[in-house]
């Protein structure tokens, strides 16, 4: 068995694959680096698979917490792991959009599924999951309710500030002027989509476009992204665990390489 672990800023993910690259199990817990998320996710994962750590031959860690993960044999960045995971799950992917808690990234793949170029949001929280969290707080709803709320929007409003702090006060003043929550929620999604579309243009968009990360569970977000890019955008299967799955695939390759070198 090969284990992939993805320790992000707000969640921890793990995946197991067998020697034939079949996905055996994957798990997500919604607490990130610096917590006991890793223990929790591993316990759940192994329990579901009916296995123990003894069965694991090789482990690769990714995500911002990867360098502090001592159960791992190797660390690989989330950029390479997302590319690997998505190529495995959705063949023919050209572009990956990953909106994470702290940062967003766009990865362009070459025809062999390798990273050709990537860009990440720099400097601030605009265009990240953090922005949505703040919006959710102002609107008094959970992150996963934001999508449905936006789905009920009848009028598109513009949130013009890119800065999360400014956008927050902009939204508060919209609400106090009587703008419906649904329309504000939609505005927030469109605002992120616009920011991320800017990143996409920097690396160049190649179809198929696949979204990963927790934010991709929000189907109105995926739609907003698609509209901004004027391209079909789909959410990856196991969208939150894509990085962990990629890491597990790298674990398998690394173990095979090691074996070849030894034998």
């Amino acid at each position, binding site marked *: 068995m090969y284990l992939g672990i993805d320790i992000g800023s707000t969640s921890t993910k793990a995946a197991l694959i067998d020697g034939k690259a079949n996905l055996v199990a994957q798990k997500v817990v919604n607490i990130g680096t610096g917590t006991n998320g890793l223990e929790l996710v591993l316990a759940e994962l192994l329990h579901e698979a009916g296995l123990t750590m003894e069965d694991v031959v090789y482990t690769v860690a990714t995500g*911002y917490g990867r*360098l502090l993960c001592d159960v791992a044999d190797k*660390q*690989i*960045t*989330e*950029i*390479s792991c997302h590319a690997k995971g998505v190529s495995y799950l959705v063949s023919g992917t050209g572009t990956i959009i990953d909106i994470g808690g702290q*940062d967003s990234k766009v990865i362009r793949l070459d025809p062999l599924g*390798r*990273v050709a*170029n*990537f*860009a*990440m949001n*720099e*400097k601030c929280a605009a265009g990240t999951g953090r922005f949505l969290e703040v919006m959710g707080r102002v609107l008094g709803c959970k992150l996963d309710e934001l999508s449905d709320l936006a789905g009920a929007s009848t009028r598109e409003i513009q949130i013009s500030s890119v800065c999360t702090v400014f956008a927050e006060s902009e939204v508060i003043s919209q609400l106090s002027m009587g703008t419906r929550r649904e329309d504000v929620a939609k505005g927030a999604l469109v605002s992120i989509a616009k920011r991320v579309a800017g990143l996409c243009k*920097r690396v160049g968009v190649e179809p198929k476009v696949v979204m990963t990360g927790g934010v991709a569970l929000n189907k109105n977000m995926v739609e907003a992204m698609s509209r901004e890019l004027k391209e079909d955008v789909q959410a990856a299967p196991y969208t939150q665990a894509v990085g962990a799955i990629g890491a597990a695939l790298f674990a398998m390759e690394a173990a095979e390489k090691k074996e070849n070198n030894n034998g």
Partner: protein
Amino acid sequence: MDDDKKLTSKDFLNQLVAKHYEGALQAKAEGKPVVWATSICPQELLETMDLATVYPENHAAAIGARKGALEFIENAEGKGYSSDNCSYARVNLGYADIQKAEAQDIPMPDLLFCCSNICNTVIKWYENLSKTLQIPLILFDMPFNHTYEVPEHSIRYMRGQIEYAIGQLEDFTKRKFDYDKFGEVMELSNATCEWWKKATDWAKVIPSPLNGFDMFNYMAMIVCMRGNADGHRLFKMWHDELEAKAKAGLGPWNSAEEQYRVMWDGIACWPHLSTTFKALKKYGINMVTSTYPDSWNVRYEKNDLSGMAKAYASNYANRNLDYDEDNVVRLVKDFSLDGIVYHSNRSCKLMDFRQYEIQRRVEAATGIPSVVFDGDQTDPRAFSEAQYETRIQALVEMMEENKEARRKG
């Protein structure tokens, strides 16, 4: 001669840095005038006039590297300078007010000498100094070159300003400008620049005998000592050491081997110099070049004033996008680069503005991978170690894929 054998260029560099600042402080103490000047200005005029000169950009970098920048930055911001201003400017404007730095003191200026061939920020920065300190400013206005080659009118404009500045310096010092000495200084400056360029060119050898972060250190002296005999000796010495290392097949470090060769685009992150260096070295990445070797390759024939004007007008930062693209593509080939690290420097709008487009074009032309990271040359607040590390590791993964593909044919 005996001393010369024992002295390494690094020792000599440290001696010269100390001598440079002590000399300027001493001049001030003796009542001689002191000049503050921008980094790529026609220093030949100041050297000819024998004027003690310090370079605020160098000084700010030194303060930044010794982790002392924030005090000055906060002072400048407190006076109303936006945090979007260049942090060299903020450190220096703060220093002009506080006038004391643990890292390094410099004497206050009596004359300002500013050349806008590096950016427009320096114009307002020096104007503000001039107004606040009530001292004269000699300004070389060097408009951006929108055409590929530096146009003839720009060269004539620069030449005119050099001639005019000579008169201004005569008025300021109440001394005649010595044209014979000027010729000697020109000759020496060119020779020093030639050694600087030749030294940094040794990094073309694989493995490179030069650790590029050392270049950042030597750079301080090509800014302020290219017109004198000490500077000339230093760069020749450094060159000879690198030549010997290259011929012995020695790489950049004793403790690790060079595995990847990259270019660093932009200024160093002085407050995080060791963090940024170590993260590269950990993966065997050697920064073998940047755009700086050419920035101080200021070359022209002795006594050719138009040639000198052209050399200063031709600074890389002042050239158009097509020129920049060709320049970087050439570096990729000449230095056998595996990748590029772009420092998106919050301070330097001029350098950042072109960065994404250069990255896109260079990638298309050469196929080598690159990453952009956020930082700042002296403001310690604009850098995240984890973000940097992730980008560098991702670059390694891309470079490794390329190597693997090449191995497989």
